């Protein structure tokens, strides 16, 4: 247990020592999104009845920041350690694959939660939010961060170079995030794209998260919860399998 605690602490210290880059910068980026999109679309778009577009946007931006930063934390830590060679310090001790998984993903979730809280605190000034079901907010936030932290771990294990990791991020994570309903409701899409969106697990994370604020969503929160839980278990099982097999780490 001390091994896990130490690795978790090291992973947290790693991003906290450069918090301006890992926590403050994403909060600023999210605020810029809100200012620009909120200003341009405020009077033109209303997604849910009685909810202003700026308010609609806030949960999506919070969740997007949580997801992107959770992914960035585990993936960048692992790839940096692999490329600089200092991953050996983690591979030599008697740390189990469960401890490695828990520490990397746990730190990713924490960074996601810190950035998400920062985005919330800043953007709350610009929009009037309600909190219909706060437990759903917490649950979807943590699960979403856990999924992306795990995907970051998988990407970090798989990638041998920074550009491979960037490809994973730019061609998979970014499109899935942007096309998940951060800036819109999927009901505003044509039928075909609505159907496609339902295959995107990120859509359920954001939709369920947003339900916690407004009590309104594109699909029922329990349905989203089931999909998100299932997806988490799937990617977590895959990541633990990779760690246990030593794929690309112990070769």
């Amino acid at each position, binding site marked *: 247990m*001390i*091994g896990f*605690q*130490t*690795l978790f*602490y*090291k992973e947290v*210290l*790693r991003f906290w*020592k*450069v918090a301006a880059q890992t926590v403050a910068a994403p909060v600023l980026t999210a605020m810029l999104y809100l200012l620009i999109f909120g200003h341009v679309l405020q009077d033109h778009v209303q997604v849910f009845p009685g909810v202003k577009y700026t308010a609609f946007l806030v949960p999506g931006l919070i969740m997007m920041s949580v997801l992107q930063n959770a992914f960035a934390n585990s993936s960048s830590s692992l790839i940096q*350690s692999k490329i*600089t*060679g*200092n991953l*050996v*310090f*983690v*591979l*030599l*001790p*008697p*740390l*189990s694959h469960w401890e490695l998984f828990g520490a990397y993903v746990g730190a990713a979730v924490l960074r996601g939660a810190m950035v998400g809280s920062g985005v919330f605190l800043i953007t709350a000034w610009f929009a009037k939010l309600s909190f219909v079901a706060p437990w759903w907010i917490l649950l979807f936030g943590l699960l979403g961060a856990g999924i992306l932290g795990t995907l970051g771990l998988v990407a970090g294990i798989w990638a041998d170079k920074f550009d491979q990791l960037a490809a994973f991020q730019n061609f998979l994570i970014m499109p899935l995030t942007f096309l998940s309903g951060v800036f819109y409701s999927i009901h505003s899409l044509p039928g075909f794209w609505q159907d496609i969106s339902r295959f995107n697990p990120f859509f359920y994370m954001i939709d369920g998260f947003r339900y916690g604020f407004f009590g309104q969503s594109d699909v029922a929160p329990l349905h989203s919860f089931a999909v998100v839980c299932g997806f988490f278990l799937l990617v977590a099982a895959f990541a633990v399998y990779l760690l246990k097999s*030593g794929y690309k780490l*112990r*070769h």
Partner: protein
Amino acid sequence: MAAIQITNVEKRYRSLRALDGVSLTIEEGEFFGLLGPNGAGKTTLISILAGLNRANAGSVSVHGHDVVSEYRAARRLLGVVPQELVFDPFFTVRETLRLQSGYFGLKNNDAWIDEVMHHLNLTNKANANMRALSGGMKRRVLVAQALVHKPPVIVLDEPTAGVDVELRQTLWQFVGRLNHEGHTVVLTTHYLEEAQALCNRIAMLKAGKLVALDSTANLIHRISGSQLTLRLAPGNRLPDVLKPLVSHPDQLLGGNQYILRVNDVAEVEPILAKLREGRVVIEDMQLQQADLEDVFIQIMEREK
């Protein structure tokens, strides 16, 4: 019980056999040398022992614990100094050592961390960031990281490659002390005089195969006699009659120097007589006992 038991270990990288059925036993308390040219498989073998790599066949155990099925117990007993000069740029020396202690399940390990830093002359760098250290200092931290959990088996993979005399002396004093206290030490190095001075037993690997395994003394006794190094004046050549005695045909020394094998001192005078007959002028001459380097070269050439 053996400190390290290696049984029929094979490692293949596509068509390359990096390790080809290596078996050896290292007893507790030994100072063991693992020698071989680059690419012989030394680091691969150490990586398999440390769990950084997996063998395709065979098994390795540390104090009876298999490095795959009982990896936690095996790794607790091992302290490995990797060959590459790696470090984590986010942390200071003390943070690095505390983290490494924690990975091995140790809390409040500062007393031992301070002692290790003291013995490796790192104390005044304790709060320096790893990025700010020189190569030699980073190497010391790597050694300290391997020792934070007081492992009974210490593996040093070319720890003195490219480091200054002071660190070598500091390192060997400290590791020597640990060996006297009962720690098993496994060393790979290209500095054969170091291996000869420190190791009580030596294994030699070539192209993934074990080609020699014996006590250092026995290995050196395999080559009886001495070697006579001659430096001839410019324009002088070794007489043909003496050429069969040249021990290193590739002439590592270059120029006009020759190493001749002699069984004893009595054989030197006839050689000098032949040189006088040929009116060869000698600039310098040395007579040396055979050492581990001679054995190493002989074994590696024999295995070609």
